[in-house]
């Protein structure tokens, strides 16, 4: 499957790695819900590191859409909340 990390580009992630990424994703999600900035930073870092280590960069010249889109590595908790609400962050 194709995963885009915003600000980095697209990656090809093998399907068998999805379960591992889902676990890492849950940690990010709960940090966003509790508003724990430190935990959020660590969890997001771990999730993106998981993607990068499991994946290879997707071929640059394609027009394929991504199956999953992840926040930029240096995103703040507020930015991720904005991304989730669809307000402001994504230029229309």
């Amino acid at each position, binding site marked *: 499957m194709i*995963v*885009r990390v*915003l*600000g*980095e*580009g697209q990656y090809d992630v093998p399907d068998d790695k999805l379960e591992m*990424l*889902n676990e890492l*994703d*849950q940690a*990010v*999600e709960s940090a*966003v819900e509790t508003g724990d900035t430190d935990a959020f930073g660590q969890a997001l870092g771990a999730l993106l590191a998981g993607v990068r280590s499991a994946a290879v960069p997707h071929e*640059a*010249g*394609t*027009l*394929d*859409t*991504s*199956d*999953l*889109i*992840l*926040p*930029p590595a240096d995103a703040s908790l507020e930015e*991720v909340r904005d*991304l*989730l*609400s*669809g307000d402001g*962050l*994504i*230029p*229309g």
Partner: protein
Amino acid sequence: MSLMKRISLVFRSKANRALDKAEDPRETLDYSYQRQLDLLAKVRRGVADVATSRKRVELQVNQLEQQSTKLQGQAEKAISVGREDLAREALTRKSGLSNQISDLKAQHAQLLGEEEKLTLAQQRLQAKVESFRTRKETIKATYTAAEAQTKIGEAMSGIGEEMGDVGLAIQRAEDKTANMQARAGAIDELIASGALDDVSQPGGGDDIARELDALSSGSDVETELAKLKAGSRPEALESGQDGDVLQPESEKSADEGRQ
């Protein structure tokens, strides 16, 4: 639903909403391509803007480091003439500059990071825009307006996602640099006002430099005097052993040869 899924859905729906719906879908392709070129130009400007900010910070770091070196020199000079109070003042000012310098260096690293990110974003978008152009020409040449719909939808979604990503990258870079530019402006004003220069311009408005100058012009005379005295003394001592100080060099060495 997982965080990744939720972000993906929001992002994609927003990217798709941004796509224009033209009467003939093939016109949409040309319109979108134009917007892609506009975005590419915008990223290039973004890269150039960030580079300009980075160079400005580099220049400021250099200027402040020069001031810092001068203050260090002043402190050393003050100590050599026994004025610990002046040395302390110079070092205090130097430590104030050091904080600013390390702050600027951190900004510099951040700007460099933004510059690299935007440069890579530009390359990625460039590759996608190039594919889109090829795809667009193929679609227009091969399909009727009715047939083209699906193909166009695919191409548009793919490029739309990339454009959303790049647009976000530009916006974030702008937000980050705007704050830094305000601070850089404040430091430029400080440098231009002479508040920093004065500290180390000899004879300028700087009190440390003025006092050191006064001290050193006084002590220079003393030093010269001491040198003269010291210069005559060793020979005077030698004269006790070797005879007349005023004896010409040639004769003196001849005397030494004889001994």
